[in-house]
């Protein structure tokens, strides 16, 4: 069952069809909520978003893509949450430990691995230090690997805004990481 058919059936009240959509997009929804700052409340945010999406399914423009439409609701829920908690919508993540980051040159070389891991940590810190708007653009474009158009829809901003925020964010990251690199 593709998204369009699932939406059609869900609109007719078929909850099995809606379960298909929830199952399909659960992972990316959780990831989006976490990356936009929901922290340990990501599960709550995601459930809420799916319930709201169902209720507002009539507002979904048929023929467009379901994923960014849903993720926008997730993003809005996350924003509401962080705002109501009075906290910054920080990146609720840490560097993974499961996969040891080995350097490209000499995998297995502990020194190279350490340098590389250090670089990633610095890059993550630099992303964290971006303004909310720039960080969210980076999160959507690179961490979630959404297109510019999808990013615009998810964040509820114009395409040009996505482009300029991404551009500024990359420039800043380059400055930060570059300075560290040579410093």
């Amino acid at each position, binding site marked *: 069952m593709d998204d369009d058919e699932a939406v059609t059936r869900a609109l*007719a*009240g078929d*909850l099995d069809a*809606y*379960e*298909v959509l*929830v*199952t*399909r997009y*659960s*992972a990316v929804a959780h*990831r989006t909520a*976490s*990356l936009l700052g929901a*922290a*340990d409340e*990501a*599960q709550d945010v*995601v*459930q*809420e978003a*799916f*319930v709201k999406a*169902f*209720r507002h399914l009539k507002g979904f423009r048929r023929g467009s893509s379901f994923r960014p439409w849903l993720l926008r609701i997730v993003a*809005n*829920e996350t*924003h*509401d*949450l962080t*705002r*109501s908690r*009075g906290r910054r919508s920080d*990146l*609720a*993540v*840490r*560097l*993974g*430990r*499961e996969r040891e*980051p080995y*350097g490209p*040159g000499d995998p297995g070389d502990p020194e*190279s691995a350490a*340098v590389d891991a250090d670089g*990633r940590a610095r*890059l*993550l810190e630099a*992303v964290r230090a971006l303004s909310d708007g720039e960080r969210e653009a*980076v999160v959507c474009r*690179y*961490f*979630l690997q959404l297109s510019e158009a999808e990013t615009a829809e998810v964040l*509820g901003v114009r395409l040009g805004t996505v482009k300029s925020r991404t551009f500024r964010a*990359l420039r800043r*990251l*380059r400055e930060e*990481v*570059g300075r560290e690199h040579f410093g």
Partner: protein
Amino acid sequence: MSTSDDRDPIAPEDLETRLRDLGEELAMAPVPPPADVARAVRARIEDGGAGDRVRPRAAWRPSPRVAAAAVAVLTAVLLGATPQGRAAVVSVLRIAGVEIHVGGAGPLPTGVPSPLPGERRVTLEEARRGARFPVAVPSALGEPSDVRLADGGRVVTLLWPGVRLDEFDGTLGVVWHKELGEPFPEQVGVVGGWWIPRSHGVSYVPGDGGAPREERVAGPTLIWQHKLVGLRLEGPDRVEAMRIASSVR
């Protein structure tokens, strides 16, 4: 340090690749199996949405300063008839742990106020220690003349002569259930809440999931949320209610 890419460590495309790689290595809070999420969502939909919370919506985006000043507009979730169809078309308004059914109310209930589960009289300090949320006191009213703590710290009731202020954990589930006829409650921007101008039926929904308590008649009531706390203020008229609500810190 001399790695091979020292000369141009941050070429644009390289930075973008590094960001994508970084994204794939980020560890997040554990995610439940999608099938579990689907089941939970379905249960909530079938349930009519118990557990909904209402938080400030992102319809417009206040600056952080404005948001911090707690002027954020709260728009309640407005649910129409579900696709499954409901017997009567009743608008359901859910805000801060209060579920309001508008339009389907019969005659006003005849029940008299009964204590909430485990309700006991406490001091303000005891209420603060025992409540599951920070207890707010409206400065416009000063120290309450009576304080009650109920249902394992889920509800704190502050009383002044002619005024009742219930505070409750407004983030999870439904704490109060209200039945009213038209008119639809009036949204008030000042505190981001809803004003119910008429007498109506109210019942308490216990935290243990038990059956709602007997319905009683409530007078005109203001419902709003302050931070994570749901509040219902009963007794004062509209103007006074706004004044009191605005003084909650």
